Structures are given as structure tokens and as C-alpha cells.
């Protein structure tokens, strides 16, 4: 296990020692935290709201359920889930990045929602086994150093009958690939430079999307992590995919 930790990993297209990735991803999000929501709206033309709403709609979460929002950042999903589970349910917002979590916590307070915010690493979740009905990670798995370990942790904290939702960029429909590349590698860093004053972070975003496993690979990774059944939806021609993993035993 220790040898495994000493291995290298990718940070966008760069290869870095594993122990450095977390800090580098941290820098990216510290840099963009305040402009994160604006950038999301600009980059996706508001589509990220539709994708998140869809994740909520297909979650099957009901009043009184317990939900864990991993890498929840600015708290978009925590806010939606908190309304869905109602006062008898519970949503916990987590993120490894203090700057992002700060933004999310403030937004929850401003919205008058009682959502505890907790800074923690998804690879070592500080929760007991079988604690949640639903775990969601939206646009966060891509940045994790050991995705397999994180997925196992998510499976561990789920109750039997619970499900994991992974909303993440994925492999786009082949005829649109060239257009998508042009957008990701030319327009995206330019927008990052103008709006968030940080072109490098958005260059990293484009690269990290390309390095992320495609739909079928991620499905297999979830099955390997112990999920009994995994389904996925392609959204916006595969720009984003929503994977739903079931823990039935």
C-alpha cells in the first residue's frame, strides 16, 4: 500500500508524484473559489444547473433521507437535496478544499438551511459504515488522486439499498469531439483568463476532463468498488454522464 502511494499520477496532462496532486488541485480551487459559480454558468451556458437538477430528480431521495454531498464545494446540490429531504432528513456538505467549503457553508447559512459543512478527504471519510441513503459527488471524482479508494469509501458509508450518484464530465459523442476540443482548449482558458483571471486553472480543467475515465470504464470502477449494479445517463451528448451505483447487499 505504501509503495502504491509513492506512485505518480496525472494532474491534467502532467505527471506528478501522487502526494503532490492534492496540493495542486487545492491551489486550483483556492484560485477559482470566489468566481466558481459565475464560471460554471458561463462555461456551461447554465447547463450545469440542469445536470444537477437531473441528478436530484433521478436520485430517488425522499423526505427523511440522509444524504452525503462529497466535493460539494459551493453547495449547489446540498441546497437542492436539503429541500428534498425536508426537516426530518439530513444533508452533510463536505469538501477537501477549505476555500470552496467556506463558500458553500456561507451560502447554506444565507439560504437559512441547516446543513453541516465538513472539511474531509473523500478517500478517508469520517463516517461510520452504512450511514447514508444517498451519496453524491458532482464534478469532484475527477480531481481525486485515488478514485478507486474514494469509491470504496463511498460504498462503505452507504446503507444497504442506498445509491451513489457520480455526476462528472465524460466522453463526448464522437462527431462532436473536434468542436468540443476547440471549445475546451481554446475558449475555456480564454474565458478563465477574462473572468476568473486564471487561465491555467481552466487549462487544467480541460485536461483533467480528457484524463477522466469514460462512461464504461467508470461503471466498471464502481462495480469493482463493490456496487452491485451501476447504470449511467449521458447528458448533453456525453459531455457529462451521471452514474448511479446501487448497494443492494
Amino acid at each position, binding site marked *: 500500500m505504501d509503495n502504491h502511494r509513492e506512485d505518480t499520477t496525472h494532474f491534467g496532462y502532467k505527471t506528478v508524484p501522487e502526494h503532490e496532486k492534492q496540493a495542486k488541485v487545492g491551489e486550483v480551487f483556492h484560485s477559482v473559489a470566489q468566481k466558481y459559480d459565475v464560471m460554471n454558468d458561463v462555461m456551461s451556458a447554465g447547463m450545469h444547473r*440542469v*445536470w444537477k*437538477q*437531473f441528478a436530484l*430528480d*433521478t*436520485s*430517488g*431521495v*425522499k423526505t427523511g433521507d440522509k444524504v452525503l454531498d462529497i466535493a460539494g464545494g459551493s453547495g449547489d446540490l446540498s441546497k437542492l437535496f436539503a429541500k428534498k429531504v425536508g426537516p426530518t432528513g439530513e444533508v452533510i456538505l463536505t469538501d477537501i478544499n477549505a476555500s470552496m467549503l467556506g463558500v458553500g457553508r456561507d451560502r447554506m447559512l444565507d439560504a437559512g438551511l441547516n446543513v453541516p459543512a465538513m472539511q474531509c478527504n473523500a478517500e478517508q471519510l469520517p463516517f461510520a459504515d452504512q450511514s447514508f441513503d444517498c451519496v453524491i459527488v458532482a464534478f469532484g471524482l475527477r480531481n481525486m488522486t485515488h478514485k478507486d479508494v474514494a469509491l470504496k469509501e463511498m460504498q462503505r458509508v452507504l446503507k444497504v*439499498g442506498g*445509491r451513489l450518484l457520480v455526476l462528472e464530465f465524460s466522453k463526448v459523442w464522437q462527431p462532436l469531439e473536434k468542436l468540443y476540443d476547440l471549445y475546451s482548449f481554446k475558449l475555456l482558458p480564454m474565458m478563465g483568463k477574462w473572468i476568473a483571471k486564471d487561465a491555467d486553472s481552466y487549462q487544467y480543467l480541460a485536461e483533467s476532463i480528457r484524463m477522466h475515465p469514460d*462512461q464504461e470504464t467508470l*461503471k466498471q470502477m464502481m462495480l469493482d468498488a463493490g456496487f452491485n449494479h451501476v*447504470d*449511467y*445517463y*449521458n*447528458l*448533453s451528448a456525453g459531455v457529462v454522464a451521471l452514474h*448511479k451505483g*446501487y448497494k443492494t447487499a
Partner: protein
Amino acid sequence: MIAPLVTRFLQHITQQNSWAKPHLTAFAGQIIAFDFSLMRMQLVVLEDGSLATAPDNAMPNATVFIPPSLAMRLASGDEHAKTLIKVDGDVHVATEVSKVLQQMRWDIEEDISHLTGDIAAYKIGEVTQSMFAQAKKQTTQFAEMVSEYWQEEKPVLAKKMHVEQFNQSVDTLRHDVERFEKKLEKLSQQIGSSAEDTDTHLASSVKKVQSTKPKSTKAESTKAGTAKAKTPKEST
């Protein structure tokens, strides 16, 4: 883009018809496909008893086939049309979910009331309903008019009475042909049996003739053969 919109609408409808959730929860995780020939829609029952579009990689537990002609009959409230729906896979799931779906109603007035208030929403609903009823009436009248024109003025369609007459004639013809076939069969059987009798009779006659012929020895027959062979030579 379609999946999120359809799912949003389904969620909205199941929320309006909250009575349906306990019925659907029993089928959580089941996927039902509705095949309308021109389009296909797959729905999944979620854990909370609501509905969503099915995942892209999922296989349906049951498929309900509703061709467009049947869909129109169902929409017009034809009870007999329900018996013509074809189902593949888990029939129980398809039947139960379809039953619930048929009873679900979209309360448009309730949705409009959030924008315009209750009174205006009620009025809009009333006007919309009367417009739909009027449109339905007009469509029926137009269809009747067109069918009458095609039956009387420019006969493209057959009249019901003529179709029935034709069907009766076809039935009569079919019965006649069947009777004729049976007669033909009987006749050929009879011919067959009489031919067999003739054959047996002929065979027995041949046997009789053979048995009455005087028996010649081998030597005699050889002699006769030699004599026959010599004859041409002698003639020369």
C-alpha cells in the same frame, strides 16, 4: 437535453399525483419501455416511487407495444383497444405500472395558478377545456365529412354495409370451396379405391391365365430357340 426535461415533467406529475407513489414504490428499480413504433420511451421507477427516464445502458424488464393506430383508439377512450396492447417481458410490472400511469392526471390549473392566481387559472382551464372539446368535435365532424365524401362522391373508402356484404360473400365462397375440397377428396379416395380393386382384379386374372398355360420343359424351350435362330439362314 430531452432526458432531464422528461424526467422533470414526470417528477412533477408524480408529485401532483402523490397517491401513486406507494403503488409504484413496490416496483422500484424496474424499467418499462413503451414502444410507439415511431418512438420509444423507457421509464424507471425510482426508490421514492417517482418516475424518471431510464438510464442509457439499461435493459427493460417489460416492453409495452402501442402502435399509433392503437394509441389513437386509447386516447379516444376505446376500452376494447386496451385488450389489443402487446406486452413482452414481465407482464405483471407492465400491467400495474400502466394502470397507475393511466390514472395519473396533469393538473394544469394548479400549475397556472402559481403564475396567475386561482381565479384566472380556473378560467384559463375552463376555456382550454372547452377549446379542446370543440377541437375534438370539429375533428370528428371533419373526419366524418371526409369519409362520407370518399364513400359517396369519390369512392375511395368502402361503406360499412358493403364491407359486410363483401365479408359475407367471402365467407360463403370459403365455405363452398371447403365443401368442394371435401367432395374432391372423397371422390379421389373413391377413384383410388376402385383403381386398387381393378389392379387387384387384373393381377388375379393374370395369375389365373398363367396358371392355366401348359408348362414346357427347359429342353423344349432351348430347342425352339435354336430353331428360331436357324430360320433366316435356311431361307437364304
